[in-house]
Structure formats: C-alpha cells, structure tokens
C-alpha cells in the first residue's frame, strides 16, 4: 500500500542526495545539476500533497500551478546560471569552485 509518506520519503531522500552533491562536489556544473535535483524533489512533495488532498474529488490544482511556476523559474535560473558559468570559465579557465576564492576571507 503506497501512502503519502512513501512519496514524501522519496522526495526527502532525493533532496538529501542533492544536498550531499552541492556540498561535496567541486565542479560548478555538477553542483548546479544537484541544485536542479533539489528543486525537483520539492516539486514532488507539492504534487504528492495535491493528490492526497481532494476536496472536490479532483486534485487541488492550485498547488500544481505552483509547481508549474517553479519549473518555469527553474528553467530561467538554469539559463542565467549557465551564462554565469560560461563567463566564469572565460575568466578563470576552470569550472572548479576552488578557482573562485576572491570573496574568501
């Protein structure tokens, strides 16, 4: 029997994997991909809650609209983020986070 908690657990573990990737990896592109994974995990939580909350017999589409907006914002974020990474690569010839330490105290 699949319950809401099953879906929430999958979303939580996916978020944890993304978190581990963001902290552990040194490649900016991989970090960025892990960020996308964390965003998607949050989306899964939203969609799961929609499906298990059916006041009029169909899923609550307000939350699915929020997921729609999240996906759109994530797409814009990826475009801008990748442009920044390309600019960074032009300046440093590297995509390692260790090559960007100017703000480090």
């Amino acid at each position, binding site marked *: *029997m*699949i*319950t*809401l*908690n*099953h*879906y929430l*657990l*999958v979303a*939580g*573990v*996916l978020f*944890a*994997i*993304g*978190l*581990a*990737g963001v*902290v*552990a*990896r*040194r*490649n900016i*592109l*991989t970090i*960025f*991909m892990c960020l*996308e*994974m964390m965003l*998607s995990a949050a989306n*899964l939580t939203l*969609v*799961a809650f*929609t*499906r*298990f909350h059916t006041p009029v*017999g*169909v*899923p609550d*589409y*307000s939350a*699915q*609209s929020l*997921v*729609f907006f999240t*996906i*759109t*914002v*994530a*797409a814009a*974020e*990826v*475009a*801008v983020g*990748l*442009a*920044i*990474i*390309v*600019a960074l690569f032009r300046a440093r010839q590297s995509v390692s986070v260790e090559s960007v330490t100017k703000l480090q105290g």
Partner: protein
Amino acid sequence: MPSLLFYFFAAITLLFGAGVVLARNPVASAMSLVVSFVGLAALFISLDAYFIGTLQILVYAGAVMVLFLFIIMLLDIKAEELKKGNVMPIVGGVFLAALFTFQVVTVLDGFKAGDKPLPALDLAKAAEAPELAKMPSITNDLKAGSLPDAKLMGLTLFKDYPLHLQIVGLLLLAGTVGVVVLSKRDRKEEEA
C-alpha cells in the same frame, strides 16, 4: 501492481540521482540526471499529474539538460580528479545528507495524516462543482470518467493566477535579456 511500479520508479529516481553525485565525468552526471528526471516524471504521472509529468520531461529532461550538455561540451571539461583537499567536503556532504534523511524519517514517522492510501478520485462529484458549471468541455470529460488534467490546469492558471502567469512571462524575458548581456564579450576585453 501500482505499488510495484512506484517502487520501480522511486528506485530509478534515487539510484540515478545518486549517480549524478557519484559520477566523476560531468557528461555521465548529466545523463544520470536525465534518467532520474524521467523516473520523477513517472512518479508525477502515478499521482495523476499528467500535465506536470509531461512538463517535467519536456522542460527538464529535454530543454534544461540539453542546455547543460551544450555547456559541458562547449567548455570541454575534463573529469574531476580526486585531490587531497576533497575529503572534508565529502565527509561534510554525506553527514549533512544523513542528518537530513534522519530528520525526514523522524518527522514522517510521527506524521499520522500522511499514513493513508491514495484516495480515489471522485469525478462525478467534481462534475457537479459550481465553478465548473460553465465549462462543458471539462464537465463532459469528468462525466465520461476521465480526468481532464491539462484542461483543469489551464483553467486554474488563467482563472485564478493570471497575474502570476504574466509575471513569470516577464521573468523569462528578463532571463533571456540577462543571458544575452552575460554572454556578450566585453569590447575592451577583445581589444586588449
């Protein structure tokens, strides 16, 4: 049978998600992420969110990941080498992930409201809803016993959140302009 499919797609999502973090080569990471997103889209569809599931495949697995692959190939990135200074971040990342997972499991263990099976959709009841009375295209689908997911999604977006939709459109425009500005080479830089 649906529970088997749930475990199958959940396993695909999580295993390939782990592959993203573990793969040394960024191209392998990107390909794992594509498969992970396809698994996630299947989970969305198992939750009757057909539109969101389709969007996940089209936007994430399609557009976003192709953009990632383009950039990876454009920059010609070599596989990451394991250096000595890398041990602390890995320990920290694994510790944080374990802590977060432990927290989620603890919270879900006490979350009794989430311990219920998937409620059946009541399409006949939804067809009687007053806000859908003037939407024959939707009520006919509901009476015929199929969930008009994309239609209901569009109705919600354009009836309840039209301003938000326009703001998001403006954001996409701003993003496009931002990308063009960011990737334009500085003229002074070229002369130098």
